[in-house]
């Protein structure tokens, strides 16, 4: 009881802190710039949604107009006729050009471009840079957060595993919170969707993906300004895993279902005209399923961040006794909803992955049910 109270208190505290941090940042910026406030907020939001090459916690502008960033630089790793490794502090947050081995690189809208010594960026008609983009394998903010989340998960779950041996099969500490979730994924996601016989081999993936997405979603709500799961490359990688596992563990029945969906219900010559339409649809379905996973997670997290930050941004646009508390209250309410969404998206991703694995490992007796469901 005591513990749950503290957890709640901690959560609420974090949320409040998140808003104050964003608020502070905005305030400092508006003082130093003459830019239109709305454009500034828009730019700030779009900047936040992108990955960055340094881990900045917040920034402010000094009296003399100098930008001050609080945070730490991260290593930049480029492949440009050989491996180039240097610290992102060389970019000075995009304000200067980094010179490495006689090559010049410039940070422009969170992307690294190869430039001349002046840092000139050439544009095409649609205002897209035409400069060469070297292959960028940098340890960005998102990569750091993946590592942090990975270490956190390793620590949490190996300690949970150890606590069983120590405490005679009963978890201790945080494990008491996580064990029911592990059991929920096993009993209510994996078992009913995949089946009693085959669910075991998918469990590690389902558990890892659930906690990975959930933790990163929650990290996204902290004032650190992280948006890992709202990044298309991340969700693509996750959905690709589901896609590969689905198709590599597919049974004979599964593939029969893809290429011969009607089975032996009618003679082969009757099937030909139908299959001209049906088989491409089935094959397209193979790709649409994971694609929907990647877009759903990406769009939900991205949208959540945009809404939340826009509401916080409203405070500075209203600047009145009525508007600012109102938008503060709204942002607070949305934060609470976002906590739910963080869990929900992790659940949906896991649930649908389990469902696809279930299709892939279907046996003959389930085939008819599956057809009816289609």
């Amino acid at each position, binding site marked *: 009881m005591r513990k749950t109270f503290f957890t709640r208190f901690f959560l609420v505290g974090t949320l409040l802190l998140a808003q104050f941090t964003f608020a502070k940042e905005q305030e400092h910026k508006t003082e130093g710039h003459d830019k239109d406030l709305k454009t500034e907020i828009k730019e700030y939001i779009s900047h936040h949604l992108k990955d960055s090459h340094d881990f900045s916690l917040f920034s402010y502008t000094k009296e003399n107009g100098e930008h001050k960033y609080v945070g730490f630089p991260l290593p930049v790793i480029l492949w440009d006729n050989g491996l180039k490794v240097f610290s992102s502090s060389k970019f000075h947050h995009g304000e200067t050009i980094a010179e490495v081995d006689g090559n010049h690189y410039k940070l422009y809208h969170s992307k690294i471009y190869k430039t001349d010594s002046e840092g000139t960026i050439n544009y095409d008609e649609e205002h897209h840079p035409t400069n060469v983009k070297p292959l960028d394998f940098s340890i960005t903010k998102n990569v750091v957060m993946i590592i942090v989340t990975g270490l956190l998960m*390793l620590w949490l*779950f190996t300690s949970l595993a150890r606590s069983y041996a120590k405490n005679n099969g009963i978890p201790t500490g945080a494990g008491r919170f996580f064990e029911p979730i592990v059991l929920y994924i096993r009993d209510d996601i994996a078992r009913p969707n995949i089946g009693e016989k085959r669910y075991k081999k998918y469990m590690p993936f389902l558990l890892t993906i659930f906690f990975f997405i959930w933790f990163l979603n929650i990290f996204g709500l902290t004032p650190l300004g992280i948006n890992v799961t709202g990044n298309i490359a991340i969700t693509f990688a996750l959905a690709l895993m589901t896609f590969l596992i689905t198709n590599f563990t597919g049974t004979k029945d599964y593939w029969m279902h893809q290429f011969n969906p009607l089975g032996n219900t009618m003679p082969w010559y009757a099937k030909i005209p139908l299959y001209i339409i049906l088989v491409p649809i089935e094959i397209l379905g193979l790709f649409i399923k994971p694609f929907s996973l990647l877009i759903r997670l990406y769009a939900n997290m991205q949208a959540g961040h945009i809404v939340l930050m826009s509401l916080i941004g409203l405070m500075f646009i209203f600047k009145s006794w009525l508007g600012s508390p109102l938008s503060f209250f709204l942002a607070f309410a949305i934060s609470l909803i976002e906590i739910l969404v963080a869990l929900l998206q992790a659940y949906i991703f896991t649930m649908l992955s389990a469902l696809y694995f279930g299709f892939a490992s279907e046996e003959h007796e389930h085939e008819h049910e599956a057809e009816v469901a289609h």
Partner: protein
Amino acid sequence: MEKLLEEFSVGLFFWQTILFGLLLFLLWKFAWKPILNAVNDREEGIKNALDAAEAAKKEMQNVTADSEKLLKEARAERDSLLKEAREIKDGIISEAKEQAKVEGDKMIKQAQATIESEKKAAVADIKSQVANLSVEIAEKVIKEELSDKKKQQKLVEDMLGDIKLN
């Protein structure tokens, strides 16, 4: 779509795949496997314990039924024993009564016989004493009577007459 493609970062995809794969492998080996095994073992343990409890309950029911049966039997045996004992007691008492009666009768008869014989002896004794006494009296009387001849004669005659009367 174009914006999405532009946002796509190959580097991030690369790191995500590598790190997630590594995380999956490590968690599989050091967390999920032991956790799921431990949970499985525990569930099996609980199931076994429940089964054992159920078996014990059944056993208990059997034992209770047995003991009840035993109790019934014991009670019946006790009742029969008591009945038997009562019968034996009654038999003994009646037998004793009969014996006592027989013995009493015998004793009474003996006593009566003794009394009879004693009486007879006493009567005989009295008779002899009376005879002696009468003889002595007679002697004395005779002695006195015999001092005179006439008297002697008369006495003899009287006596003889008396004896005849007897």
